[in-house]
């Protein structure tokens, strides 16, 4: 199950990392990371409803998985959910990943970091699904509160990344 999520994610992210780091946008991407992290980090950590995290609202159609075998189900879910681009993501941290990969600079390091980001995302997603399968959460308020806490934590992480990116970009420009 972990491989079904992590491998497609690594492949998709590696291709994306190759494309992003082949463009001369490293410093601009770091500058964008500072602005993005400060804006969305503040909004999320303070519990503001806007701006909403950028992304799609699409969800996997039921007929893609209903009646399918376990292997096909894992393949469909893994290739769609593992990379994380196609389905809804309520946390703005996902958008920062693209900027961070673009800001790494250098084809080899960009490819490596992007692939590792993909593996980390896909593995995290699969572990969360395994956790939910072993202990389903039925209370909607507990689910909502937990989502709010994750959002605040995501905001604090974005602020830390904004601080680190600001120092890094200042060094490049200075």
């Amino acid at each position, binding site marked *: 199950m972990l491989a079904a999520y992590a491998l497609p994610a690594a492949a998709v992210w590696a291709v994306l990392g190759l494309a992003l780091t082949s463009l001369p946008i490293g410093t601009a991407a770091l500058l964008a990371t500072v602005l993005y992290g400060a804006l969305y980090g503040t909004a999320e950590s303070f*519990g503001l409803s806007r701006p909403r995290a950028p992304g799609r609202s699409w969800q996997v159609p039921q007929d893609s998985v209903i009646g399918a075998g376990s292997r096909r189900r894992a393949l469909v879910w893994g290739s769609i959910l593992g990379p994380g681009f196609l389905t809804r993501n309520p946390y703005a941290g996902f958008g920062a990943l693209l900027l961070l990969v673009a800001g790494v600079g250098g084809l080899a390091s960009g490819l490596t970091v992007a692939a590792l980001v993909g593996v980390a995302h896909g593995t*995290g997603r699969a572990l969360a699904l395994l956790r939910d399968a072993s202990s389903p959460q039925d209370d909607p308020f507990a689910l909502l509160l937990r*989502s709010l806490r994750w959002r605040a934590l995501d905001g604090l992480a974005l602020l830390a*990344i904004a601080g680190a990116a600001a120092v890094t970009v200042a060094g490049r420009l200075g």
Partner: protein
Amino acid sequence: MTAPAGRPAAWLAGAGTAARSWTVIAAPAALGAGAGAAWLAARGWPAVRGLPEAGGDVRLLAAMAIVLAAGNGYAKAYSP
């Protein structure tokens, strides 16, 4: 943790207010911690080596991206 029966909106509003009060401290601390870590990383941890230089370290940002990706994937399951 469950909301009191009949008062879920007030309960959630209270949870939000409590979150914002500690965030006043945590948000600037997170920003400063990130900046400080990048500053230290670029200097080879000067407390040990005493080598002041300008700039940050992109390897730290790469490590942060990987941790953020893992957390994002894990947290998404809690999305309502």
